[in-house]
């Protein structure tokens, strides 16, 4: 008893020290304006280097020159001519590819027969760079808009089908069993359980297919088009008009950002429950 009291007294007399905090890090949080500030800094340095003559304007025009080029394109009406041609191709191609991809993806996700057949075909055809099929599609569909739209639709179709059936596969089985336990009909289960359950994966797929569509429209327009951002960029490159070329690149980047924002908005609206 005395020994214990003595030990406790000795322990109390010792200096205390804090337990070192070891839980920091691994929780990356992005600041709201950090990215924009970094972008502004890069543009400022780029502009300063160009203005000071440190960079040859032929190889890398200044941001101000690119903005001027965009302005001139807009004023002359060429911007809308090229942009509308690209938007039409992307829009129609993306809608066709997405529509077919959603239908086939759901069929693969819900039917044993469609899964056996569909996955085999998708595995075989998905890895083919779709732009390599453009000459064949021109042969089949002529030299108009159709082959370009078909190239985009094909590129979008495979990614969409994969994301849709992956999304259907990822719907928790317990929810389906719950619905079955209440005798909920198949169509209602698809509409009320599987569709909303697969929607996060489908929207994530849309993000990817939007980029795929952009990539393919530029490639297709570079191969065979008079109008379109891809054709414009190629033409500017051939004429060494690098300010125009980069103006086209900036327009593509802005387009990608806008599409990303639209999908982000859709996710916020449709997936608010997450």
């Amino acid at each position, binding site marked *: 008893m005395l020994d214990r009291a003595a030990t406790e007294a000795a322990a109390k007399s010792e200096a205390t020290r804090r337990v070192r905090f070891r839980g920091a890090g691994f929780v990356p949080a992005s600041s709201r304006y950090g990215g924009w500030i970094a972008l502004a800094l890069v543009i400022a340095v780029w502009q300063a280097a160009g203005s000071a003559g440190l960079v040859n304007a032929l190889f890398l025009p200044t941001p101000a020159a690119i903005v001027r080029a965009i302005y001139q394109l807009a004023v002359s009406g060429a911007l809308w001519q090229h942009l509308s041609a690209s938007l039409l191709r992307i829009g129609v191609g993306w809608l066709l590819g997405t529509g077919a991809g959603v239908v086939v993806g759901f069929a693969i996700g819900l039917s044993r027969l469609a899964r056996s057949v569909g996955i085999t075909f998708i595995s075989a055809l998905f890895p083919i760079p779709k732009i390599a099929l453009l000459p064949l599609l021109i042969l089949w569909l002529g030299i108009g808009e159709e082959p370009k739209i078909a190239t985009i639709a094909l590129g979008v179709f495979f990614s969409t089908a994969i994301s849709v059936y992956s999304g259907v596969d990822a719907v928790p089985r317990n929810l389906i069993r719950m619905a079955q336990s209440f005798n*909920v009909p198949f169509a209602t289960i698809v509409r009320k359980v599987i569709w909303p*359950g697969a929607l996060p994966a489908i929207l994530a797929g849309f993000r990817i297919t939007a980029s795929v569509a952009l990539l393919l429209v530029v490639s297709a327009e570079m191969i065979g088009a008079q109008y379109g951002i891809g054709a414009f960029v190629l033409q500017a490159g051939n004429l060494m008009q690098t300010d125009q070329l980069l103006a086209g690149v900036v327009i593509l980047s802005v387009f990608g950002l806008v599409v990303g924002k639209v999908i982000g908005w859709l996710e916020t609206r449709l997936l608010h429950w997450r």
Partner: protein
Amino acid sequence: MDLIANHISHRFGDLAVLDDVSFTVGAGEVVAIVGPSGCGKSTLLSILGGLLQPTSGAPELRGAPPADSLNPLTFVFQDFALLPWATVEENVEFPLLHTPLSAAQRRALAEDALSRTGLTDFRATYPKQLSGGMRQRVGISRALAVKPAILLMDEPLSALDSQTRELLMEDFVRLLADGGMGAVYVTHNLEEAARLADRIVVLSRRPGRIREVVTVPMTRAARGEAAAREKLLALQNQIWSLIRNEAIDAEREVQHA
């Protein structure tokens, strides 16, 4: 309406899970199923509820369900199985959507079920905003909304903390008090079985066979009284002695699997 397990056996591939299980759940009766881990309790419940096809034997119904029952055999799931994108009210209305009821009738049924589980104020809430106990209350409301004849409850309290379990157990006792609704209650917890069941079916370790059917010798109302506690404890000890050695063997089996 009676629910009958008629010589039910089941295998998953080479693995025999259930072997010739037969018993009857009478109208308004509460039957608990207990047994060591992996003895096929949940499999048996899935078979009884028509969610799994048995290898042999069959679940059968005798007699007509109550006229107002929209889903005579209704599950309450261990993991709640709530639609995360739907509000509490939408979850409770979900099993009514395909019925011929009007929107107003559906809403009235959902409202009644929500009020019986104390969820009226949470109707616009999403499942992720609720505690585990509240989520299970939503699951119970959803089951009540279809006016079941027999509730099939698969360890409905096992994912919850002990205080919430106690509160929900009181809810179950209240909901089953009038004998209008029967239940098959699968559980690991012998205390839950003894407090809720009229009869307890004790299964052996895998493949699950009926070792014994124990009748709880008092009404549910009487089980809350102090004098009943010793009897219930003795009953739990009796059942535990039946399954203890097999539970140890089953646990080792699981660990070595």
